[in-house]
């Protein structure tokens, strides 16, 4: 089910400003790839290229190639709706839909794509909520608004919402940035579960988090991928002095 993501020679401009410079990176299926680097270095933009979310804002131009599975994402004829179903995204700030109940938040994508009808919808919602370990906490109040949950629960609700449309790839943009330590741990546990079935690309500020959950780490600086390597090796012995400087806290 998981699909690998390959980025080749990707450059990205917003207006006249070049945000990404000739980025190449490969994220293996069933692995967690962490993107680390100082804020403003282009990590989030890289993530938003993969599901073409950058297209929502005018002024962007892009060159290079991004392959998800076997398909070139930047091909103008690509089925954007299908791409975004296959490549799910979790945002920095949990964004449950405030006008929908907990149940309907998870069902939103199912209904959008017509993935299930009638009772199947409820079964699917339940199984997604169970996967993110939220079912026991919310099963008695499924009709309450999603925004009444705690921030940590909201982020898990967003995970369930994304799981419900059966993605192959998860893009996560600092999913724990607005969470407390306990909620962060729960999300990290989930990520460790998720990568058995999905490809995960996660942007994080937190190097310990990258070390804890990822198999591969890429260090991004000023729009360039400075270094990519196995997480275990990279944190022990970096090859690039800029990565070294960042990891030891001299930069960032």
């Amino acid at each position, binding site marked *: 089910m998981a699909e690998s993501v390959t980025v080749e020679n990707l450059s990205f401009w917003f207006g006249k400003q070049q945000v990404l410079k000739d980025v190449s990176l490969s994220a293996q299926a069933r692995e967690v790839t962490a993107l680390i680097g100082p804020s403003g270095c282009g990590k989030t933009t890289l993530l938003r290229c993969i599901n073409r979310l950058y297209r929502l804002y005018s002024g962007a131009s892009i060159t290079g190639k991004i392959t998800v599975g076997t398909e070139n994402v930047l091909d103008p004829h690509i*089925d954007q*709706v*299908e791409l975004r179903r296959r490549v799910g995204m979790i945002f920095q700030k949990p964004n449950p839909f405030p006008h929908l109940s907990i149940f309907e938040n998870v069902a939103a994508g199912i209904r959008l*794509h*017509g993935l299930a009808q009638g009772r199947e919808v409820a079964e699917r919602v339940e199984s997604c909520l169970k996967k993110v370990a939220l079912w026991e906490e919310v099963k008695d109040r499924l009709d309450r608004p999603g925004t009444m949950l705690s921030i940590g629960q909201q982020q898990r609700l967003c995970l369930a919402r994304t799981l419900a449309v059966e993605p192959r790839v998860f893009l996560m943009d600092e999913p724990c940035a607005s969470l407390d330590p306990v909620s962060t741990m729960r999300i990290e546990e989930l990520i460790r579960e998720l990568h058995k079935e999905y490809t995960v690309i996660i942007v994080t500020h937190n190097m310990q988090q990258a070390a804890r959950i990822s198999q591969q780490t890429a260090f991004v600086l000023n729009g360039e991928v400075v270094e990519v390597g196995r997480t275990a090796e990279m944190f022990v012995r970096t090859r690039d002095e800029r990565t070294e400087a960042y990891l030891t806290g001299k930069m960032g």
Partner: protein
Amino acid sequence: MNGKQLRLAKSYLWEVICLLSGFAAMAVLFLILYYIVRRGAGVINLSFLTNLPTPVGVPGGGIGNALVGSAIMVGIGTLLAVPQGIAAAIYLDQHRESRLAIATRFAARVLTGVPSLIVGLFVFTLMVLRTGSYSALAGGLALAVMMVPVITLSAEEMLRLVPSTWREASLALGATHRQTVLRLVLPAATKGITVGIMLAIALAAGQTAPILLTALTSRFWLENLQQPTASLPVLIYSYAITPFADWQQQAWGAALVLVVMVLLLNVAAQLFVAARNREV
């Protein structure tokens, strides 16, 4: 067509519908401007702007007295409404959650929703019935009633944008409240407040019903503020509903003058806003 194509087609269809609504809305403005220019431009010349009206069929009639009357009444309205509105806004800004502030804010919003015609009935009873005559003063007062809530609410909004740290710093330096407000807060908000005043003036200049009920109209020059007074909007109305072609054409000319003035005020206000945004 499969489900996804259907979804996309539906999306395009609705996007096109919204696009068409947008263009229709904008087209309405340009269509109306087009007609006003086409029908009105022909009569406009210096004597049209400066002459008195003439009887039907007599050429050379103008809108001079209506322009003066409108200017005087809008002037009176502005003179009354600006200090009153700003003073009320200062109170609202200083006592944001006091009971009087909440009630006043509600009153201001209610007042902006009162039909202008009703404001006319109000001032008619208050002034015209009491003095026994339609007058420029009554017209000006009616316009002031229309302008006060607009100026109050927009000025309060602008005063709120002044950072409270400035005020605290001023008070900490030993300035009194009055000094802080008059020398620091008001000057800092001047541009924004001016924009609000300009928009209020534009609103007042186009008012017809309240003027009709309070100042009526006149075919002569204004001699004092206690007599019936001509105005641009009432002139447009009274000429338009006559069957005479020359008067109807003058109504278009007067409408062109009015629209140009009002739109210029709005454009100037917009430029003011843009200039302020650049500064910040």
